[in-house]
């Protein structure tokens, strides 16, 4: 079995780039890095706003008094760093095909994220009790907008992590079809009230939205399948390709999570430690 499997696997490895784009990279990964680049500018602006306004304290505690104790925020920093570590372990598990450990590490990461959000909620409540609110001063507003947006990113990341842990299967069936490809046309047909097209009807006779969908499908059609070597079946190739896509799902949520972590690295230093 092993003797036969190795050349087949080698052939699959040789073919793995076939489905790729003109850049040779996965569009989803390129898009994620582009998104993270835009997030750098977004958080850069928020941090700049905080640094400009941190001395403007009309009422409520000022920066030195608000951040007198660093115990809680230091624990939050350690927890988020630990979550980055468990995230990278989840990706490593996905890459070696260990679905169970991948799921465990993803959920541990989500748990650390929940802890972080809980601690941040407590911190906000504590500040509110001391009179530090978004309405109290520009310092309060810029601080809460910055850390609040980061908290929102963490929350989104937790939802994403749990979704990936629940939905990603590293051993997919080859007849799998994305739900949007099957449900969207049905949903649009339901909304428009147009009856289902009878077999044999010309495309021009279809309702407008169906013509649009057909046009989009034609324009975004995947490249033709490769000419496979005789020792590689179509099923094997599709399974291999799908497995790569599944691992990429974990990699993308990992990139997002690590980015959220490095944003906190900067916030921890600039907002809390500089005080």
């Amino acid at each position, binding site marked *: 079995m092993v003797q036969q*499997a190795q050349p087949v696997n080698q052939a699959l490895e040789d073919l793995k780039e076939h489905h790729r784009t003109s850049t040779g990279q996965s569009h989803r990964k390129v898009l994620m890095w582009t998104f993270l*680049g835009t997030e750098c500018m977004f958080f850069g602006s928020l941090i700049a706003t905080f*640094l*400009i306004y941190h001395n403007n304290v009309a009422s409520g505690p000022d920066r030195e008094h608000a951040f007198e104790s660093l115990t809680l925020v230091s624990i939050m*920093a350690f927890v988020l760093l630990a979550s980055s570590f468990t995230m990278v372990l989840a990706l490593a598990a996905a890459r070696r095909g260990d679905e169970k450990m991948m799921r465990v590490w993803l959920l541990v990461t989500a748990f650390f994220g929940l802890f972080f959000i809980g601690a941040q909620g407590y911190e906000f409540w504590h500040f509110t009790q001391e009179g530090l609110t978004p309405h109290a001063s520009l310092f309060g507003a810029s601080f809460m907008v910055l850390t609040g947006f980061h908290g929102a990113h963490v929350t989104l990341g937790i939802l994403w992590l749990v979704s990936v842990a629940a939905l990603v299967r590293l051993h997919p069936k080859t007849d799998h079809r994305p739900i949007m490809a099957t449900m969207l046309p049905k949903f649009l047909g339901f909304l428009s009230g147009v009856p289902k097209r009878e077999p044999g009807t010309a495309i021009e006779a279809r309702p407008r939205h169906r013509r649009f969908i057909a046009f989009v499908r034609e324009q975004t059609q995947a490249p033709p399948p490769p000419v*496979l070597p005789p020792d590689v079946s179509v099923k094997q190739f599709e399974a291999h390709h799908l497995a790569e896509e599944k691992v990429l799902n974990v990699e993308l949520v990992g990139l997002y999570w690590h980015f959220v972590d490095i944003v906190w690295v900067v916030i921890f230093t600039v907002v809390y*430690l500089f005080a």
Partner: protein
Amino acid sequence: MKICPQCGHKNSYEAKFCNNCAFRFREELMPRPAAAPAGAHAAPAAAHGEAAGHAEAHGGSHHSQMFYLGVFAALAVITLIELVFTSLDNQVVKLAALIILSTAKFCLVVMFFMHLKGDKKLYTLLFVGPFFIGAGILLTLMALFSNFQLR
């Protein structure tokens, strides 16, 4: 072995073109023999269509769990050092030390946890370019407005 994606002909790894149909191989897309994990990963991946053996499938360098543990330990130690530096009275030294330590943490996460080190240059460009734009925005806004004291 390099298999032509056009005709399926098997060529040597050094081949620039397919010997059968003259298809031009793109070097950056073709896996090298050393990059393909052999042995333990090969059989399950082929036999079950699993994700094993995909360590290089999306580019980037991948390390052992002990390596990642080492990176995490380094991050934790740097954070502790940061906390120690906060008690310094000399504001200039404190500021400089915190910036350096924070940058070190940032780089460790980006290079090793996000695997930007060893990954495709395109991703570095996509991330580092906007990062410097963001840093430029930060410095510009601070230079423009930090002297105003709004009441």
